[in-house]
């Protein structure tokens, strides 16, 4: 009986399962692809201010996706989302001013170094779930803010901190050679977002992602399958850190210089809240988090409403999300589209 079934159902080989998982991960996200395409089509028609705002939104979305992966896939609450992006920005500026390497090289090096720092930061929490990691990241966010607000970000000076003294001209980080203008840089960032999403989907849908899915059930269940829990968690810290590093480098490249005031620990808390509201399970959620963080306040601002109103709306939305929509806005959108397509299906059958 077994042998008979083996031939008829031999599609379920690990290679086939893996291929299918990757396909699901990469292609079967029409919503994310549509979202990015829509932005690619619509944003160029907006003015320079909005092009820059949407660029910032995409940059935040990369960092938010790292926070979302930790939250949804591993059950870890990172309260250093923005601080990690800031660290990436610091590293990118330092590397750029010290070496003058091409933007792409700085981008990759920044991602690698930020990933390492994130991993080291998470080490004490490897064997624990929950609170310890949140506290560690919160402490990091606070410490990072103290440092960058007193020392500032590198601006072409010498020494470890890379700060210009006296009347020497401060330096800006140049944008990539192929994307000097605002619109070109927007498209550059859009492509990097797509690459980051694709890369993370490959990880989520392979051996490592399967290990994370088991760890989310419980450490014990994962261990009973031979999974080295600490090691798998360390890789998640590194992935989230690497994404934050990419975001930080893009941010530094976008404005040329960073300001310590953008990296208040409250901003990291806000980003985490927005990730939960927007939907940590999906990449659309990360994009929406970026939208809420960067574009929504700008819209309110342009309507003459103060930013505090945005914070209050976010607070209410967070409570609403936790109570009614555990998969966030993105989850609700997915449910809506699923309902519509079911409806269309039944209509078609009826005819």
């Amino acid at each position: 009986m077994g042998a008979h079934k083996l031939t008829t159902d031999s599609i379920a080989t690990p290679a086939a399962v893996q291929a299918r998982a990757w396909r699901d991960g990469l292609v079967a996200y029409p919503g994310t692809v549509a979202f990015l395409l829509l932005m690619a089509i619509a944003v160029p028609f907006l003015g320079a201010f909005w092009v820059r705002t949407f660029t910032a939104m995409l940059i935040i979305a990369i960092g938010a996706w790292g926070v979302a992966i930790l939250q949804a896939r591993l059950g870890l609450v990172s309260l250093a989302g923005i601080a990690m992006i800031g660290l990436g920005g610091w590293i990118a500026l330092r590397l750029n001013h010290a070496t003058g390497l091409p933007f792409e090289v700085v981008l990759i090096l920044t991602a690698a170094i930020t990933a390492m720092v994130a991993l080291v930061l998470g080490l004490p929490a490897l064997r624990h779930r929950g609170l310890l990691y949140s506290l560690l990241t919160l402490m990091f966010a606070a410490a990072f803010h103290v440092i960058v607000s007193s020392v500032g970000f590198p601006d072409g000076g010498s020494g470890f901190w890379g700060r210009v003294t006296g009347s020497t001209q401060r330096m800006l980080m140049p944008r990539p050679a192929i994307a000097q203008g605002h619109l070109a840089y927007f498209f550059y960032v859009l492509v990097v977002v797509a690459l980051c999403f694709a890369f993370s989907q490959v990880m989520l849908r392979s051996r490592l992602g399967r290990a994370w899915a088991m760890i989310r059930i419980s450490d014990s269940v994962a261990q009973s399958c031979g999974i080295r829990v600490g090691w798998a968690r360390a890789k998640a810290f590194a992935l989230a850190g690497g994404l934050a590093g990419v975001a930080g480098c893009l941010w530094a490249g976008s404005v040329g210089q960073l300001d310590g005031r953008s990296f208040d620990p409250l901003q990291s808390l806000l980003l985490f809240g927005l990730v939960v509201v927007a939907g940590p399970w999906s990449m659309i959620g990360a994009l929406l988090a970026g939208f809420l963080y960067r574009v929504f306040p700008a819209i309110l601002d342009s309507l003459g409403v103060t930013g505090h109103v945005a914070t209050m709306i976010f607070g209410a939305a967070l409570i609403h999300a936790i109570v009614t929509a555990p998969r966030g806005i993105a989850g609700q959108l997915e449910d809506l589209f699923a309902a519509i397509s079911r409806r269309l299906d039944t209509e078609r059958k009826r005819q």
Partner: protein
Amino acid sequence: MIRIKGITVAFGGVKPLRELSFQLSGAICGLIGPNGAGKTTLVNVLSGFVTPVAGEAEAFGTRLLDMRPEARHAWGLARSFQTPQIADDLSVAENVMVALDPLSLPGAERSQRLAMVLAETGLAPRAHVQGRRLDGFDRRLVELARCKVSRPRLILLDEPAAGLAATERAQLIDLIRALPVPGESMVLIIDHDIDLIAAICEQTAVLDFGTLVACGTTRDVLADPKVRAAYLGEFEEGTS
């Protein structure tokens, strides 16, 4: 063949296992006892989730407690859980593959093993169904497939037939019977269903309040007056 020697577990003041010692051999063995007797706790000790304050456990001549929990998988330990532990966002095949992943086998071997367990458990047609869409029985099957795919030496099944319909139970029993390789591997089943234990277990140990009530061939154990008094008496009254 497993040998338990003087295992004591303490959760604060509670001692679910107290100087427990016994030995079981046979392809399929049973572990029974009333609710709260310490059965799951013993399985947790063997699989490494609970560290006993004293005692030793040996399986096929290897001291299990010296190994880290995840290393016991590579040694050849697999277990199921009283409530099936299936990842909702992984497919059936992926839920089985997790136990294969850490073994770093050649690709062809992986393929063959996965296809075989999926076929044997009848899960092959549902290989790509997401975990969240599975019913209770399929969840049990996925856990069983996951236990089987790594070709373990010691398989611990914690109430695998609980809550199943009669036909499902019969199918599960056939699958469990086919699990062990005689002389090379052993299945230890916890269950409250005495008929199931009597039907498939060569030897059985009975626990009550964390201590051993009886241990030996299943037939002898089930006939033991102490066992009937401590466990079966109330059980039979409860069912008949």
